[in-house]
C-alpha cells in the first residue's frame, strides 16, 4: 500500500467537499433517509441535528460506507464513493463510544491508520506522537486505553482519526458519553483543531447547543428529510418550520387565530384576545383568514410589565425559578397555556407566584407558523 498523504504532515491538508444526491435508505418499512441531497463545502463544519430516528446517523453511516444506500449517490472530494468500501474512502471517524483498541497502547492506537497505510514503524510512531501532542496528550503514548479517563480516550480517538490527514472527518455523537463540563471543553477543542487543520467535519448530534456552538452550518433532520440547512444564527432567528423552531432552543408556542391575511403580513389574535400585526418576513407557511395557526416567541425576548398597551398579554405568574445569570418566570395565559420568560437581570426581578403581569416583546420577535406547505 502506498504511503501517500501520511508523510506530508506539516501544512494543513485542505478539506474535501461531499456531494450527496437523492440519498435514500430504507430499513424494512421505515424510510430512514428519504431522498436527501446535501452538499458539504470543503473545510466546512457541518452538523446533522435531529431527534433519534431522524436519519442523521444513517446519513453519516452512508458517507462512511457502513450502510449502502438504496438510491442516490455520494461523492467525496470529487470522487464517486457510493459503493466503495469504508477502508478505501480515506476518511477519519470518531465514534460515539471511544472504540480504542484495548490491546494496543495509546501510541499504537493512534498509529493504527498509518500502519494500515504501510508507513514504517519509526515514522508512524513519530507522527502518532505528534498527533497526540495536537490533542494535548503528549507523554501518554505508552499507556493502555483503559488507564485513561473518558475525555482523554476521546482525545486519543480524535488523534487516531486525524493522524493520517484525512480530508473529511466524520463524528458520530462523539461527546455524548462525557459529562457537561468536559463536553463543553471538548467542543472548543474540536473546533480549534478543525480550523487549524482545515479539515471538513460532518458531526452528528442530537444536542442543539452542541450544534450551535461548533457548526458553520446545521442541517435539521426529521423523519429522514432535511427540514432546514442554515447557519446557526439563521436557524435560531428565522426557523422555517414549527419543528425547527421547537428544536433549536427554547420557544413558547401559542395557539392563535388568523384574523386577516395579506401580502405584507397577517393579523393574529392571541389567547387573552390581544391582536397582533405580524409582518410578512415573520410568517411562514400558508395562512388563511379564520384558520388556526401557531405563534412562537423566544423566552429571552419576553418583557414583564414593560408595556400595558393593547398588545401586552395578560398572564398570571405560576412559578419563578432562579437560575444564576437568568431567572425563569413561568406564567399562565387566559387559555391555560404556559409561557416561559427568561429574564436576564435577576436582581431586578420582583415578581412572585400569583402576580398578575403583562407580557410583551419587540415587534419582530413573534413568528407565525401557518399550515405547512409540502416541499
Amino acid at each position, binding site marked *: *500500500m502506498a504511503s501517500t498523504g501520511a508523510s506530508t504532515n506539516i501544512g494543513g491538508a485542505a478539506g474535501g467537499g461531499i456531494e450527496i444526491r437523492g440519498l435514500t435508505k430504507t430499513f424494512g418499512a421505515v424510510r430512514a433517509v428519504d431522498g436527501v441531497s446535501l452538499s458539504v463545502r470543503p473545510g466546512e463544519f457541518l452538523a446533522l441535528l435531529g431527534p433519534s430516528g431522524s436519519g442523521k446517523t444513517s446519513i453519516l453511516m452512508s458517507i*462512511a*460506507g*457502513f450502510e449502502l444506500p438504496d438510491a442516490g449517490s455520494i461523492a467525496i472530494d470529487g470522487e464517486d464513493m457510493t459503493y466503495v*468500501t*469504508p*477502508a*478505501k474512502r*480515506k*476518511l*477519519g*471517524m470518531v*465514534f*460515539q*463510544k471511544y*472504540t480504542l*483498541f*484495548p*490491546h494496543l497502547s495509546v501510541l499504537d492506537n493512534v498509529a*493504527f*491508520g498509518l*500502519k*494500515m*497505510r504501510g508507513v514504517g514503524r519509526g515514522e508512524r510512531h513519530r507522527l502518532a506522537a505528534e498527533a497526540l501532542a495536537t490533542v494535548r496528550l503528549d507523554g501518554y503514548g505508552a499507556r*493502555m*486505553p*483503559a488507564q485513561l479517563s473518558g475525555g482523554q480516550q476521546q482525545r486519543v480517538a480524535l488523534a*487516531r*482519526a486525524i493522524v*493520517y490527514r484525512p480530508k473529511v472527518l466524520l463524528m458520530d455523537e462523539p461527546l455524548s458519553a462525557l459529562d457537561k463540563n468536559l463536553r463543553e471543553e471538548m467542543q472548543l477543542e474540536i473546533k480549534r483543531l478543525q480550523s487549524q487543520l482545515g479539515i471538513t467535519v460532518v458531526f452528528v448530534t442530537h444536542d442543539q447547543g452542541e450544534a450551535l456552538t461548533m457548526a458553520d452550518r446545521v442541517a435539521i433532520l426529521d423523519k429522514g428529510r432535511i427540514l432546514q440547512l442554515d447557519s446557526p444564527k439563521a436557524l435560531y432567528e428565522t426557523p422555517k418550520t414549527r419543528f425547527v423552531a421547537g428544536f433549536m432552543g427554547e420557544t413558547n408556542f401559542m395557539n392563535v387565530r388568523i384574523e386577516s391575511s395579506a401580502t405584507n403580513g397577517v393579523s393574529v389574535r392571541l389567547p387573552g384576545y390581544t391582536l397582533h400585526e405580524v409582518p410578512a418576513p415573520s410568517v411562514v407557511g400558508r395562512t388563511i383568514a379564520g384558520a388556526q395557526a401557531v405563534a412562537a416567541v423566544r423566552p429571552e425576548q419576553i418583557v414583564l410589565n414593560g408595556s400595558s398597551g393593547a398588545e401586552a398579554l395578560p398572564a398570571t405568574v405560576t412559578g419563578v425559578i432562579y437560575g444564576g445569570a437568568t431567572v425563569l418566570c413561568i406564567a399562565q395565559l387566559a387559555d391555560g397555556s404556559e409561557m416561559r420568560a427568561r429574564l436576564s437581570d435577576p436582581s431586578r426581578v420582583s415578581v412572585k407566584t400569583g402576580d398578575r403581569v403583562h407580557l410583551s416583546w419587540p415587534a419582530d420577535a413573534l413568528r407565525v407558523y401557518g399550515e405547512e406547505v409540502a416541499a
Partner: protein
Amino acid sequence: MSFAGTLATPPSAPSALGRLWLGGRQISVAASAVLLAPFFALLLVVFVYPLLSLLSTSFLEPHLTAANYQRVFDNPVYLRVMLRTGWISLLTTVLALVLGFPIAYMMTRVKGATAALLTACVLLPLWSSVLVRTAAWVVLLRRDGIVNNALQWLGLTDKPLTLLYTEGAVVMAMAHVLLPFLILPIYSALKNIPDDYMRAAAMLGASRTRAFFEVLFPLSRAGIWSGCLMVFLSALGFFVTPALIGSPQELMIATLVSQQVREMLDWPFAAALIGVLMAVVATLTMVFSKAISFNRLMGGGA
C-alpha cells in the same frame, strides 16, 4: 439472617478469600464455613481421598520407593506412550481450533433461526454420550463403512482404505468430541468484542483480513487460550475414543493406565503413571493460567 440473597463479593473487597457477602450483608466466617462445608466434604470424600490414596501407593508399595516412577521413565515404551499422548492431544487441539474458530465466529455473526440452529448443533453433542459419538465414527470409518463405500463408488480407490485404527482417525474423533469446549470460550470472547472495533479498524483503512488479524484475533486471544487449554488437557486423559478408534499403535496414557489396573493388576505402577500425568496437567494449568490472566490484564478479555 436471610439466605435469600445472592452471594457476592463487593467490588471494594480486595481479597477473594476475604469476607463473604450475602444479600449485601457481610456474613461471619463461621456461617460461610457452614455453607461451604457440604461441598468440600463431598469433594474430600469422593475425589481428594481416593486420589491421594492411589498416589500414595505409587510411593509406598511395596515399600517407600521411587521405583514405580523409575519404571515410567526408564522403559522407552512408556515414555513413547506419554510423548504420543502429548502429540495426539496437540494435533487434536490444533484440528479443533481450525474447525472451531470459524464456527464460533459465525455464531457471533448470525441472528435468529440460524443462530439457534448453530447453537443447537454445537451444544447437542455435549449432551449425548461420548461413547455414542465415538461409535458413530466407527460406523463411518470401518472397512465397509460409509466413507469407504463412497470413495469406491466415486472410483477414487478400488479397495477399502484402512481408516479406522489410525492416528488420523483418533485425532479426528477426539477433536469432534471436544469441539464444544473450544467453541464456547472463543464464542464468548468474540461476542464481547463490540462491532464498533471492526468498524473503527475499517475506517482506519484496514481490509477485512487485516482487521481480523490486527483486532479481532488479538482480542479473542484469551478465549482461544482457554479453549485450547481445555481441549488439550481433556485430550491428555481421554480414554473412550482412543480405546475404541485407535490400535495399539495409538496407545495413549489413559488406556495404558486401564491396562495396568485391569489386566496387570499393577496398581502402584498405574498410580505412578497418573502421578506423572497430573504433574504435567498441573504445571500446564499454572503456566497458562498465568498467561491467560496476563492477557486479560492487557485488555484481551474485554
